[in-house]
């Protein structure tokens, strides 16, 4: 389990992180979302030891995250970096070796990954000769070649076509199934909603929301209660909590504290209840609200 505990970081007089905490459990895919400059990359760089925090700690399976642990992580930095003049397979293999794979194992892992990412026929080409999308796949291969125990990926989906997105998503799901915590940042909230078990929203260096997607959507005060009552006497909503907007028989309650049972009782008393339910906001709506 990756635990990020109260990270603080300042650049000069600008505060980048003001107490960021969250955790990613084994076998959990954690989507890290936030506006540009909110602190996602800074958090991930501190997590990977590329940057030092002013205070706070990163823990791995209960202990401080050490260099030897990070070697078993797969990392994809925000600004992609590859040796442009090195051949694709050679490069992926090289990073496998650096992460401790034996020569034969590195060769095999490279061949398998390139196959999965549809890069086999480009294995002998220099990375610089590839399209940006393909370079991104190589970057991913570099992060995955040593079958990492955890994945930390900064914007892995940006710039990918839908097919590449699916291929990448499949690989991530597979790592999650193998029990690895997977942390990635993205601006593609629909993707995050589709793939992630848990989501963390960061704004101006603080975590403004985190939890499972379901928890966030069901979050208190975040839901909209939609009630449709047929043949109700007008004015049945008087005295009920929350702000409401009526549209014929349909009434939307927002800002309701509690579970809304009193509203249900009032509705039942007023007429035939055709619909009573919480309208869950989409992640995009939650995000907009959270960072506003």
């Amino acid at each position: 389990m990756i635990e990020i505990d109260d990270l603080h970081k300042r650049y000069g007089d600008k505060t980048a992180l003001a107490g960021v905490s969250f955790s990613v459990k084994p076998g959990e895919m954690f989507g890290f979302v936030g506006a540009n400059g909110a602190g996602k990359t800074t958090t991930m760089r501190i997590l990977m030891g590329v940057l030092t925090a002013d205070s706070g700690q990163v823990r791995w399976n209960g202990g401080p995250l050490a260099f030897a642990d990070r070697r078993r992580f797969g990392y994809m930095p925000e600004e992609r970096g590859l040796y442009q003049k090195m051949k694709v397979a050679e490069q992926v293999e090289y990073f496998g070796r650096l992460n401790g794979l034996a020569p034969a194992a590195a060769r095999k892992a490279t061949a398998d990954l390139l196959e999965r990412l549809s890069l086999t026929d480009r294995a002998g080409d220099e990375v610089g000769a590839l399209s940006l999308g393909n370079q991104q796949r190589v970057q991913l291969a570099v992060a995955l070649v040593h079958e990492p125990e955890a994945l930390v990926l900064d914007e892995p989906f940006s710039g990918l076509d839908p097919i590449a997105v699916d291929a990448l998503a499949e690989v991530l799901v597979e790592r999650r199934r193998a029990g690895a915590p997977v942390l990635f940042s993205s601006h593609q909230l629909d993707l995050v909603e589709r793939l992630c078990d848990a989501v963390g929203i960061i704004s101006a260096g603080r975590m403004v929301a985190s939890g499972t997607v379901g928890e966030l959507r069901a979050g208190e005060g975040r839901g909209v209660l939609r009630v449709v009552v047929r043949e109700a006497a007008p004015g049945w909503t008087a005295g009920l909590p929350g702000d409401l907007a009526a549209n014929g028989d349909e009434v939307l309650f927002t800002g309701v504290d509690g579970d809304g049972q009193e509203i249900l009782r009032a509705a039942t008393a007023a007429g035939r209840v055709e619909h009573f339910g919480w309208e869950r906001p989409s992640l995009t709506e939650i995000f907009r609200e959270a960072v506003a």
Partner: protein
Amino acid sequence: MNGLWLVARREIVTRGRTKGFIAGLVVSAVLVGAFAFLPKVFDGPDSYAVGVVGSSALQPALTSTAGETEVTTRPFADEAAARKAVLDGDVDAAVVDDRRVLADGEVDRELGALLESAHRTAQTQKQLADAGLDPAKVGQAMQVAPLEQVSVGADTRYAAARTGIATIVVFVLFFLIFQSAMFVAMGVVEEKGSRIVEILLTSIRPWQLLGGKVLGLGVLALANLVVIMVVGLGAAAATGFAVDLPPGMAGIVLGTLFWFLLGYAFFSVLAAALSSLVSRQEEVSSVLTPLQMLVMVSYFVAFFATMEPGTALARVMSLIPPFSSMVMPVRMAGGEVPLWEIGVAAALMLVATAGMLAVGARIYERAVLRTGARVKLTEVVR
């Protein structure tokens, strides 16, 4: 340690097949080979053809005085035939009746001396025999051991060869140290600018990355140096110039290798430290200015030392690191250097190199992950 070797191997494999490295290798080897051939070109021929008209005594006398120089003689029936052969260039000169030498213009100086000496010997023998002395005894009496040269001052017999070798050493050291330092700097900025360094440094330590790079490029430079030496000495042997090489060539070769290694270690780590301050290739040359100044000063003093090895400037600079890494090997190649001076220079350079490794690695470690604007040296040295 494994990480260091992997990095070194990558440097050797990828840099070793770049056009820049291969071109440098070929050009330096060709230049040094040509330089080794030059004395041969300027030395003039070492074999002569001489036409002879009406003399029998000259030939054996020529053979005995010519030594290493090969002189062949061709008989001609009369002076007209010999004259024609000289003009046609078939023979370098022709001796007529032991009285005159015919040449196209002036007689080649070495050949003239040889002919004169042979003529003198032959005529002396002939006249002594004519005076009634036993020709065998005359021949014996005329076998004179040549004077042996013994220098009671500095041994200057090999001065020219030593100056030549020292000049090659200056050129080679300057070229290799400068090129390798540039390779190191470009590699550091390539990794920093493209952020590969962020991935690398989650897998290996900064000292492994820096050490592997310096080691790998050092192996390439050393291979280049060995190729240059083999080509240079091989060319010297092939041309027969090798017999003129001063004694102690092995010492000169080993000394050059030793000083190269120290100079390379010092300058390449300095290059890595300086270039880790910037993130773009365009900034490399400006951030390397201090290094370029050091290398250029070393080069000029070393070049000056090839001509004036004994001056105070050369002696002082050959002791001060890092200049000593280029000036001292040149002094050692160019002439005798007192052992204590070599010892002092080596000790100081070793200390300076160790210091540079420590400070340079520290700067590199602190600066290489700080991408963006150029990092100020004062921010990372403390």
